């Protein structure tokens, strides 16, 4: 007999740090305006991003837990050109009880390295508040480091996470 207890929730289709620069691109993707903004404001930014994601099925570490169910992930994030970012999110499962599994609060610092901004990193902390009082993994410290080519057509990111509470674990995503 064998069971596996994933400390991490189903793959959450949230916006993550690798998407922040894409968001900026989307905000300023008219290049002329981008240049104007760059001159006028030294490319400072300050925005809220709200999103809601729907996944038509739920798997844990890619594994079928035997329950076919959708999940919904709302998210509100704040990004500032100082590098500070914060978000509140959570996840709703169709079949699990309670349906609302947890609410998470994240704080982070994002920055780029080099004039061409080919390297990006983010340091973050997330606190999880589980509806059912689960206390196994209620905190996460995450470090992401990414490299991309000049035109941003290709890139790779490594994220290392240490999760802890009454229990502890760690994860690397390449």
């Amino acid at each position: 007999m064998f069971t596996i207890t994933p400390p991490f929730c189903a793959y959450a289709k949230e916006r993550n740090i690798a998407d922040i620069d894409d968001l900026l691109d989307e905000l300023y993707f008219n290049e002329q305006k981008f240049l104007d903004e760059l001159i006028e404001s030294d490319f400072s930014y300050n925005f809220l991003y709200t999103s809601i994601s729907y996944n038509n099925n739920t798997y844990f570490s890619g594994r079928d837990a035997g329950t076919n169910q959708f999940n919904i992930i709302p998210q509100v994030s704040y990004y500032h050109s100082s590098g500070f970012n914060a978000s509140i999110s959570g996840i709703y499962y169709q079949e699990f009880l309670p349906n609302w599994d947890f609410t998470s609060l994240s704080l982070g610092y994002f920055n780029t390295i080099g004039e061409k901004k080919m390297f990006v990193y983010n340091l973050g902390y997330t606190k999880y508040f589980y509806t059912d009082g689960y206390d196994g993994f209620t905190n996460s410290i995450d470090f992401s480091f990414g490299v991309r080519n000049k035109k941003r057509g290709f890139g790779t990111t490594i994220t290392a996470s240490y999760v802890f509470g009454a229990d502890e674990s760690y994860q690397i995503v390449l």
Partner: protein
Amino acid sequence: MNFTLKRTSNFAVRLRPTVDFIIAKQSLAIEKIIFINRQRILETVNLNVFDLLNTQVSIPVSLSTKSWDFEFGNNLNLPNAVLKERKLKTTGFFSLSVGYLFDLHR
């Protein structure tokens, strides 16, 4: 990877396929039969393993305007069996995301 399929002054359509390798420490509960004084006893043993758990391939297409963005993605999981897990089947799901960006700078 990030392929811009269409880009005008008002919107952009992008294809951004990703491959994620998820490597994590997991706690595994394994039940095994042991013998104590010739009696069969089922014992649960907790083991920790640090290994590749899943490879996820995502192929999202996004449509972005100045404030809105819509994303439709097809996701494929290729879970890797660890320790005594039997061969795991490939799983997949679709995702839809709608986002709105409030620019507080202006």
